[in-house]
């Protein structure tokens, strides 16, 4: 039986005969561009270890390029390194380096243009201006790559993974460092972004605009210049992401500007100056998120409405929430607030008096930022307590009427 199976496999292999072209420094074919040129559609190019120059090599037919032990594909700082213009191209295990820099043209390590079903697996991109630049493409898979921005670029850097007018892209397990924006989306829909780590980028870890119906799962955005900022998009889903260590005078864990009808569930916001800022964002659902040790937990501008916040944990934040208006039309329910001082007489594990996450002092700071120097002074305590007992200034509706008594276990 096993023998027949073997025969069958051999026959199958013989039938779908695609050539394998081996590329190595001492081989007959030792030039990366020539190897691509000489290949027929659906051939495989096996790149042996070594260094190969590639000044904007254009792949215009369906090919599989597999690198063995990460061969170096060197752009020599002259142009882009690889441009994909055909469908069904796979780039696997290459070490792509040294693109040109420039502000007129966006030089990329790998550029994918008008290509469908292309895959980039396990590639390393180093010293690149843009890492992987995908435009007008669909069904692209970008998986397990590492991209590190150019050291020689100074403060002028490109994005790690850049999507423009794309559809149905999968971005999974990539690590992005030292770029301008780690992951950048514009006009891209139905994409899935999972398990990526975007850290130490000089601007945003993740930045998108006009990109509806995208899903973000289990990504980590850490220590980026200004955190994560997303804008003008509807129907976003964010599950189980981590936003941490985004510090600075304009740094946010997550900045939501005109994001509507989106779901933000199970995320962790830790050690950010402001964990979540919301501006003009309505019909949002925040559930099961953890806000830990942030300067501010939530900053909700008064132009956000019909947002719901349920079963979130707020622990160790200097301020749980702040707002700039008096009328608040959002719902808070069943959250855990470590600053809650109420009681639970009927023992249903839900506090009997509402919790008001906006303190008088945080309203004062909103209007007089310099007053932050009085943080944790006796006077501020007195003011907050007085306001809590006899509310007069604070937004009356900004409250959690059913705060839970103990931290919500995940």
């Amino acid at each position, binding site marked *: 039986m096993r023998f027949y199976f073997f025969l069958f496999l051999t026959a199958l292999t013989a039938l779908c005969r695609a050539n394998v072209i081996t590329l190595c420094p001492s081989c007959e074919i030792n030039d990366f561009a020539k190897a691509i040129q000489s290949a027929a559609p659906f051939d495989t190019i096996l790149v042996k270890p070594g260094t190969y120059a590639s000044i904007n090599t254009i792949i215009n037919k369906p090919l599989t390029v597999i690198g063995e032990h990460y061969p170096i594909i060197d752009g020599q700082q002259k142009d882009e390194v690889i441009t994909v213009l055909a469908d069904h191209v796979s780039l696997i295990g290459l070490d792509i380096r040294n693109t040109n820099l420039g502000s007129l043209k966006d030089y990329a390590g790998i550029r994918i243009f008008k290509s469908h079903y292309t895959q980039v697996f396990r590639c390393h991109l180093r010293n690149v201006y843009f890492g992987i630049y995908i435009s007008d493409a669909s069904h692209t898979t970008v998986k397990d790559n590492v991209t590190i921005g150019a050291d020689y670029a100074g403060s002028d850097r490109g994005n790690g993974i850049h999507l423009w007018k794309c559809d149905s892209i999968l971005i999974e397990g990539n690590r992005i460092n030292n770029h301008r924006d780690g992951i950048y989306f514009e006009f891209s829909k139905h994409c899935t972004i999972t398990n990526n780590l975007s850290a130490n980028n000089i601007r945003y870890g993740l930045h998108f605009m006009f990109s509806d119906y995208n899903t973000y799962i289990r990504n980590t955005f850490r220590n980026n210049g200004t955190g994560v900022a997303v804008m003008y998009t509807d129907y976003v889903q964010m599950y189980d992401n981590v936003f941490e260590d985004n510090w600075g005078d304009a740094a946010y864990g997550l900045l939501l500007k005109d994001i509507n009808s989106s779901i933000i569930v199970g995320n962790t916001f830790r050690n950010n100056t402001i964990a979540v800022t919301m501006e003009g964002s309505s019909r949002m659902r925040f559930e099961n998120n953890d806000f830990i040790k942030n300067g*501010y937990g939530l900053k909700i501008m008064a132009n956000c409405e019909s947002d719901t916040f349920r079963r979130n944990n707020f622990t160790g934040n200097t301020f749980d929430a702040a707002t700039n208006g008096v009328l608040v039309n959002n719902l808070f329910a069943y959250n855990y607030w470590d600053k809650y001082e109420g009681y639970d007489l009927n023992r249903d594990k839900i506090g009997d008096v509402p919790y008001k996450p906006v303190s008088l002092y945080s309203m004062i700071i909103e209007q007089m*930022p310099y007053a932050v120097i009085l*943080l*944790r002074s006796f006077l501020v305590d007195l003011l907050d307590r007085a306001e809590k007992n006899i509310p007069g200034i604070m937004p009356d509706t900004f409250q959690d009427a059913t705060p839970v008594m103990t931290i919500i276990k995940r």
Partner: protein
Amino acid sequence: MLKIAKYVVYDILRSKVLIAYTLFLLLISFSLFGLESDPSKSLVSLMSVIMIIVPLVSIIFSTTYFYNAYEFIELLVAQPISRNSILLGEYFGVAVSLVVGLLVGVGIPIAYYAPTATGFVLLLSGIALTLSFASLAFFASVVTRDKAKGIGVALMMWFYFSVIYDALVLAVLFAFNDYPLDKAVIGMASLNPIDLGRIMILLKIDISALMGFTGAVYKQFFGKSFGMIYTIGVMLLWILLPLLASVRIFRKKNL
């Protein structure tokens, strides 16, 4: 001077007020650390207690001690001892006992539960506050003859530094909100030892909030080594100036 200080320490130890203070601090610290599983959160609560209790006890205790020892001081003045060393001896005796009380009452729990930089800074600013409020107390005691009046002045000082001053700062901020006030606020904070101590600790625990828009300005100033030296320098001034002033007054005072 040292002999007088030593005698004062013995005398204070006998009076049991200091022991009660130490036990009180111990009780508060241990219960704060014991109730909360996260020691950094207990440090925050401990900080607000220390910022109120330590200056209050230091200033009231020192004032009452000074008045209670008034007859003894009169006796010493009759001896061939310089007035400087009498007052300084009294001050060091009181200050050392208070600092020891603080070290035992707060230092031991911190060393046990939270031996971190934040804990160390908290202890350090507690000590600085003790010393400066003791010296403010001596100042209050030498300028007034009457015991009740002296204690009243001391209490007013405490109330001023812990509540009224911050309210004034808030009022100034409110009035001049449209102007760049960062330098002015740093200046105003320097004029209050409690504020200075608090800011030193804030830089350790509320760093995320302070990294915000204006907080960054303060962070830049107080967080750098120059800011640290500045803070410590101003703290020392708050200890030395009232003490030197009281020594000056005491030297010429008609007892």
